[in-house]
């Protein structure tokens, strides 16, 4: 830890000015009031208000590693009393050494001032102590606030990261199996699917980099995803899109839609033998993007238990991102299931 006086320019100025003002006042008093010869007044003032504060600044190191909370009051007082005594002793010795050549001319002023310096030294030590404790306290507080803010950002990022959808391995392996089959029966189609799957995977794997994307970009990815699933499910999967053109520029959290479609396929297409339609509607209302996805499902073979992990994660992610509850609405119509996302937009958007 660097010394605050060398580290903080403003603190150094404050510390210097403080002692300078007292020093100059002292000097003027000595000369005008007590008629002390100029040279003695200068020597006295400079040793007290330049030399000693310089030495005193070293107590920072003892304070830095001796926080008020960790040590008992008694040992703290004892510690500082001893430290003050040592510092005073050194200071007075140096002062005496400086004074000595000037004391030979018979003037008693300098010699007489020495005992007073012992008392003054302790008082000034106390001033240093208060000053550096205050500095230390202020710095730790600032550091703590900074760390807390950092921690909060990290936590939020980690939370968002955890909530982001991961590509379902089931989807990946089934798609690979479809490709494996196509390489035999329809190599061109196999190639097309490999490319689609790669594009989709690339989007999903790099999506950590940017939190927000345009709706158009996200939609493109969804269509890719549904295209891959259509190869697997054939006629069983039918999709419909009703999208307001001007919604396309809206900003939405990336990969927030994919889990919705994954769910629709899991509960809709997977569990039935009939054709299932996934209908997607998107409208802009003022500063809100309303995204709705409806899928049929077979209630006879499935007992829907409201919100699964997928939907819960989206709910949480929306809440963290927009700091607003209830941005996801779920309706179960017994033969169809509806999920609506309400995505707030910046007011500048029309």
């Amino acid at each position, binding site marked *: 830890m660097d010394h605050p006086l060398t580290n903080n320019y403003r603190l150094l100025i404050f510390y210097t000015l403080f002692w300078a003002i007292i020093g100059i006042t002292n000097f003027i008093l000595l000369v005008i009031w007590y008629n002390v010869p100029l040279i003695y007044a200068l020597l006295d003032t400079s040793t007290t208000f330049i030399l000693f504060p310089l030495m005193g600044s070293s107590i920072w190191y003892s304070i830095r590693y001796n926080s008020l909370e960790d040590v008992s009051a008694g040992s703290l007082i004892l510690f500082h009393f001893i430290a003050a005594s040592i510092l005073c002793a050194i200071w007075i010795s140096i002062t005496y050494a400086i004074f000595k050549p000037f004391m030979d001319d018979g003037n008693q002023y300098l010699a007489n001032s020495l005992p007073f310096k012992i008392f003054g030294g302790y008082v000034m030590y106390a001033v240093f102590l208060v000053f550096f404790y205050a500095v230390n306290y202020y710095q730790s507080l600032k550091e703590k606030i900074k760390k807390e803010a950092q921690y909060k950002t990290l936590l939020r990022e980690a939370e968002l990261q955890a909530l982001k959808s991961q590509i379902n391995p089931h989807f990946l392996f089934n798609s690979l199996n479809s490709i*494996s*089959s196509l390489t035999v029966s329809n190599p061109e189609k196999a190639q097309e699917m490999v490319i689609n799957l790669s594009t989709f995977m690339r989007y999903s794997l790099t999506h950590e980099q940017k939190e927000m994307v345009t709706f158009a970009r996200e939609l493109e990815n969804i269509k890719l995803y549904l295209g891959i699933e259509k190869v697997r*499910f054939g006629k069983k999967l039918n999709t419909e899109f009703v999208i307001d053109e001007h919604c396309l520029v809206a900003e939405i959290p990336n990969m927030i839609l994919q889990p919705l479609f994954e769910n629709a396929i899991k509960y809709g297409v997977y*569990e039935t033998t009939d054709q299932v339609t996934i209908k997607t509607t998107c409208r802009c209302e003022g500063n809100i993007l309303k995204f709705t996805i409806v899928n049929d499902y*077979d209630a006879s*073979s499935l007992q829907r238990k409201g919100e699964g992990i997928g939907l819960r994660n989206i709910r949480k992610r929306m809440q963290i991102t927009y700091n607003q509850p209830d941005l996801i609405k779920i309706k179960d119509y017994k033969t169809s299931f509806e999920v609506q996302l309400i995505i707030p937009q910046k007011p500048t958007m029309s």
Partner: protein
Amino acid sequence: MSKKLQTLIIEDEELARTLLRSYLKDHPDIEIIGECENGFDGVKAINEKKPDLVFLDIQMPKITGFEMIELLDHKPQIIFTTAYDQYALKAFELNAVDYLLKPFSKERMLMAIEKVIHHIHNAESNIEKLEELSNFRPGEAYIDRVVVKDRHKIHIITVDKIRYIESLDDYVMIYTQDGRHMKQKTMKYFETYLDPKNFIRIHRSFIVQVDNIAEIQQYEKDSYVVILKDKDKTKLKVSKTGYKKIKEVLHF
């Protein structure tokens, strides 16, 4: 091998079926006798055609491959196919029944067939292994549906429809709002896999759905009966430990 293995493919995805078909096309010991797209048709086809070997997908619409096994009268050799299911894989590892992880190579599939032929030659039955697998519930701790077969019809009963279950030796009778269904499973199975918050084993012979209990009556010192919410006011005996469990769940 004197006779070709009569083989059935049960798989919901067209492309997966195509692949299996092309792998099996030239195999000298295999004759494909049919293909099914879902578990319902699969059960029917197995019971009617009695194949020697079945390639069975696990995740399928309506009922899963595991659930299908419960409904079979005829138990063929089975090679499971699955894309990814960590729970199911666990079950397979504990079990010698062979399985293929999608996507799989032709060589890997041939190995599985070799294994099956070996089983048949040594007259090793895999019925026990299959039963074990059918008792296995992948993924979730509690089941949310039960599949039953009455004569030729398969019913899927979501657990919220179950009123109570009665034990009948090797079978259980499942009473629902619409009727009753017999199933070859143990009480222990249902006690383990039905959510204990909703279902209580009140007696050696009964498991009852909590929401279905209308009243609990004392009819002798230390013995109780549960009266159900139906028009017949069905009475079920409660054992001592059963009574304790009811008290725990209903907090009285």
